[in-house]
């Protein structure tokens, strides 16, 4: 089932405007004159949860410095790895998803087949297995190919854990993202493409200027959801030699044997990152849903 089913087809700007004859809903300007009711400046209340969890972590680190400060200092670089991994993979995932989505709706049978095959295969294999395959199996394949073709650069290939983890994440999430983009593009009424074409735009111009801008608005919620899922799923790379937050937590615990403190702090750190992302996405949605662009 498509998660897009939950969202309106083209939540066009000004959609809240009442039809003629309907009861007028107070406008933003009118509300602005009521003290404390100005929607534009009111903070999304869920930000308080981000603040609260962050406060809790700071409190633990400050007042229970042993062991929380030690743990925090130890896993700090893991947090950076997790964030960098998430952001860099996500950028590539958007590109792969856009290409995959366009491929899935392409009329050209070869393009359509390749894109569909990619999605079907990747969707059917657990992410953990894919990551393990890229880290342990792919280098061997590359070396074998290099040896067979006498290309020494490939034959002597050494696995780069971060790079292969990014590839694994991008290949897997790119397939899901393709489906999201495909559904988003298909949710835009056929008449939009026809109108653009009838004005003399070619397929790519119509996509670029008419279809995709409207599809982006539709896919923003599921794309945001993917971002948060990705951030959590990066913890799987800890099994393929990437020193992310989870792996650093495990390394600390292996020495100090304090699972409660370590895993509580690690969980809270993930929570801060995902809650913050969720707020950021909600803010984006609100901004994109109303008015221009």
């Amino acid at each position, binding site marked *: 089932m498509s998660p897009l089913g939950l969202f309106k087809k083209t939540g066009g*700007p*000004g959609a809240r405007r009442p039809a003629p004859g309907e009861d007028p809903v107070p406008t933003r300007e009118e509300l602005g004159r009521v003290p404390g009711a100005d929607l534009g400046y009111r903070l999304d209340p869920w930000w308080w949860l981000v603040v609260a969890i962050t406060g809790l972590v700071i409190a633990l680190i400050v007042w229970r410095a042993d062991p929380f400060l030690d743990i925090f200092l130890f896993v700090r670089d893991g947090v950076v790895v997790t964030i960098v991994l998430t952001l860099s993979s996500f950028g590539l995932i958007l590109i792969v998803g856009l290409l995959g989505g366009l491929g899935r709706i392409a009329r050209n049978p070869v393009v359509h087949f390749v894109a569909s095959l990619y999605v079907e295969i990747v969707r059917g294999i657990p992410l953990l297995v894919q990551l393990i395959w890229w880290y342990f199996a792919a280098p061997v394949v590359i070396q074998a190919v290099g040896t067979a073709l006498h290309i020494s650069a490939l034959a002597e290939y050494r696995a780069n854990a971060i790079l292969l983890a990014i590839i694994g994440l991008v290949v897997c999430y790119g397939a899901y993202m393709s489906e999201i983009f495909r559904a988003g593009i298909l949710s835009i009424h056929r008449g*939009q493409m*026809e109108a653009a074409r*009838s*004005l*003399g*735009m070619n397929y790519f111009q119509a996509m670029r200027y008419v279809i995709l801008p409207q599809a982006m*608005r539709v896919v923003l919620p599921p794309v945001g959801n993917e971002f948060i899922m990705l951030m959590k799923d990066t913890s799987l790379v800890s099994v393929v030699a990437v020193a992310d937050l989870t792996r650093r937590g495990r390394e600390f615990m292996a020495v100090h044997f304090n699972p409660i403190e370590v895993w509580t702090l690690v969980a809270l750190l993930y929570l801060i990152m995902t809650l913050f992302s969720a707020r950021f996405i909600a803010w984006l949605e609100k901004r994109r849903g109303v008015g221009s662009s």
Partner: protein
Amino acid sequence: MAEPIIHIENIHKSFGHIHALRGVSLDVEVGEVVVIFGPSGSGKSTLLRCINHLEVHESGLLVVHGIHLKGARDINAVRREVGMVFQSFNLFGHLTVMDNLTLAQWVVRKRPKAEARETALALLAKVGISEKADCYPSELSGGQQQRVAIARALAMNPSIMLFDEPTSALDPEMIKEVLDVMQTLAREGKTMVVVSHEMGFARAAASRCIFMDEGQIVEEGPPDRLFSAPEKERTRTFLSKVLQL
């Protein structure tokens, strides 16, 4: 006689089992206003959509503006010359009225933005909604949206305008404002092919009316003759139903 601007010769078009166009032939001269009517499913939309290649006909000859559509290398060259107005307006929902009018001008015609804006403002004045330039389509009434759609098509300076039931999604009080704009265009000598059941418009503006049924042109002639004294039984039956409404 000059070359017809649209030359259609015995074209056929099917959708799977449905034979939507069964040998339609039609010539449209420069400056003519042709009004097509007929029962639902008779192939009127399909005919219009073939003219600007939104549908591809299977056999027969279709020449628009001197370009053979079958196997045309640059179909966009034809579409630039043919403006189309849809029943459901199809304005770009993410763009303001102004941007709806200027987008294709600079993407397709490569006009500088200032010039595109000027053209847009002039056309908005012409269709009588200058004050809505910065609104979004969802903020306009149906009649206003359709007038914007007409202006958007005109902004490309097409030599032919196609209208597919431009008023049938509109409330009665908005139909007139759209028909008035179309009538102005007709008076200015724009070549127009209009699918419509607005008999008043046909009488006032059409140089020729065409009755279609089951994928074929059944009868054609000047509106006064066709409406008052149709030759074919099928035309008479259909007209008696429509005129009763």
